[in-house]
């Protein structure tokens, strides 16, 4: 027999369920012959400095290219899901449709690192976030390494967050396709791990 005290709660939850579409962006489920196609939202925080080199990878190019690559790799592996990258607007507000993984795209410079850190700091107030950080615009590998170390040590010390390094992606050129495919694979792997571990924790190795 149900506890009568539960009845109001059930009524309330039914009411909330009926109106939640006004407030929550639910990942759209797209019908296709024979199977459902679920869209995964991947929030992207852009930490692009004012001095972001024109010859470096540009943020909107990255968003378009990575969306395409993630969807291609998912369909090749027979998956029935799709991807949509959602740039987080300034101020850090984002829909609740993300699944815990946030991509941070940063200029490989001190200003880019600072922008990335403040963005992560804002976004880490919500639990169950994992951050993958991608740099672009570095003169050489040493700059990338220093940016990664500075950002990672600060996030670890001040926020208790261990970041996942996604490396550096240069502007479109001979190596871009391979780098993009590697990035998409890494993002997909991270997303799968995050979904499996979907627990209120932000520090991961």
């Amino acid at each position, binding site marked *: 027999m149900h506890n009568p005290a539960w009845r109001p709660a059930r009524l309330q939850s039914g009411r909330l369920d009926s109106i939640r579409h006004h407030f929550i962006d639910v990942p759209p489920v797209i019908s296709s012959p024979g199977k459902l196609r679920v869209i995964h939202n991947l929030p992207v925080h852009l930490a692009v400095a004012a001095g972001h080199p024109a010859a470096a990878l540009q943020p909107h190019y990255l968003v378009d290219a990575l969306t395409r690559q993630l969807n291609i790799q998912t369909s090749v592996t027979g998956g029935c899901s799709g991807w949509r990258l959602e740039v987080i607007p300034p101020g850090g*507000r984002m829909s609740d449709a993300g699944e815990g993984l946030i991509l941070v795209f940063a200029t490989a*410079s001190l200003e880019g690192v600072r922008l990335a850190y*403040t963005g992560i700091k804002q976004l*880490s107030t*919500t639990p169950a976030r994992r951050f993958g950080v991608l740099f672009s615009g570095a003169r050489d590998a040493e700059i990338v390494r220093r940016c990664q170390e*500075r950002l990672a040590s600060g996030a670890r010390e*001040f*926020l*208790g967050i261990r970041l996942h390094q996604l490396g550096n992606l240069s502007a479109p050129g001979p190596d871009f396709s391979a780098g993009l495919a590697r990035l998409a694979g890494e993002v997909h792997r991270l997303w799968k791990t995050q979904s499996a571990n979907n627990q209120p924790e932000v520090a991961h190795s």
Partner: protein
Amino acid sequence: MTLQIHPVAEIDSSDLRALVVDNLGALLGDGARLVENLPQIDGCCLAVSDTHDGPVLLSFDAVDPQQALLAGLARMDLLGSEMAAQLLHDYQPPAELLVLAPAAPPGYLLFSGPCPVNWRRIQVLSVNGELGMVIAPVVDETAANPAAVAPIPLDRRPTIVESVMNPEEEQHFSQL
């Protein structure tokens, strides 16, 4: 004479408590003292009076800032209850919680208003075998960040309260 100084990874709570008591003046100014009419709260919290006789609750942990914050909040809740006022003569609940920890406790900025939460960075060291405590100097954050003076509206806190770097972060991110 050579000084052998190294950080202490683990410290007994009674040793840390003794260090905090020994350093009350450095933490809260000359004249700071233990509150006499309060019973011992527990191993990680102390009720003290600052130089202006203001009641302050100290909560400390040599390793875990979050544990220090949570323990302090729980004790503040107890000490603010009506039961405490009934049990103790001339009782005045703490007006401030001061967290002593090696790093800023996550979320402490969310507590402001009539009963604020502040924190001081401490580090326990062994100096030639003797325990000592380093207390970081107070940084006037409001001078560096005038916006910190105004209370932040509750509905905006999740997005902007952490958007400004504190002095430690500024220092860390001042160079690559």
